């Protein structure tokens, strides 16, 4: 196990590049998710406002 982690003396290089790769994918996974949630809450608010407006008008 230690041998595996040491990567023949290149541990910093190998593991840091893998960390960058995983971090990139993680950001790529989360960014649209957050955007989707923001858009839906925004639309939800707009819908509620519209409903209120029509209720007060009638």
């Amino acid at each position, binding site marked *: 196990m230690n041998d595996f982690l040491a*990567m*023949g003396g290149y541990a910093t290089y190998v593991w840091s590049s893998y960390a*960058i790769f995983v971090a990139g*994918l993680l950001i790529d996974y989360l960014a649209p998710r957050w955007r989707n949630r923001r858009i839906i809450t925004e639309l939800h608010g*707009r*819908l509620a406002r519209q409903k209120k407006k029509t209720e007060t008008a009638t």
Partner: protein
Amino acid sequence: MNTLSLWFHKFGSPPTFYRLSRLLCPWLFAAACLIGAVGLYAGLVLAPADYQQSDAYRIIFIHVPCAWMSLFAYIFMAANAFIAVVWRIKISEILAMASAPVGAMFTAVTLLTGAIWGKPMWGTWWTWDARLTSELVLLFLYLGVIGLFSAIEDRRQAARAAGFLALIGIVNVPIVHFSVNWWNTLHQGSTVRLLGPSRIDASMLWPLLLMALATHIWFFASVLARSRSSVLEQESGKEWVREIVQAQGVRRE
């Protein structure tokens, strides 16, 4: 031809696209993670150490798939941009603009991991080699497309303008590669090669191909996830969006 165009219009209609992508997205992400995990296990544990580079070569299993993806994403973006500029199909505009950030991410990862790999192997973080320079220019092109897209107010016009820029860029990249190659021979710079002249061994090749497959699937999953929210945003006035928003809102409360 008729069935094809019919299928295209059906898939291209925003509600169908939204439902289909919501169905596909989790499966694609899961498949990418699974194949990627197998590939990484094979690359990190099963594949033997290189006789020249020892274990440092294992960066290849992420660096090379990301480099392939940076080009593939650009071609995908440009193809969609072409459809968007010529036939003005809404889904193509959205797909082209959704693939730009993913491609930029893969390009940035390629550059960073390449620098990290270069340090122990060539003794330097960066050389002005043709591949590295054209990859850097590719990143600038991606950033230009994203910047232009976010700078224009009207979403559809922004997508068409940025798509046009992507089409100009696809002419630029080979020219940059060629010109830097010529410039390098003038300066007689150190000729570095990422993959040596020796052919890659089969025990290292199949994890590499698995990783390439995983990144391709990931790319499509991410593009679908991104275009899904763009569809929702652009179609915000429509009835089907209202239904979806109400359904989701009820679920959260």
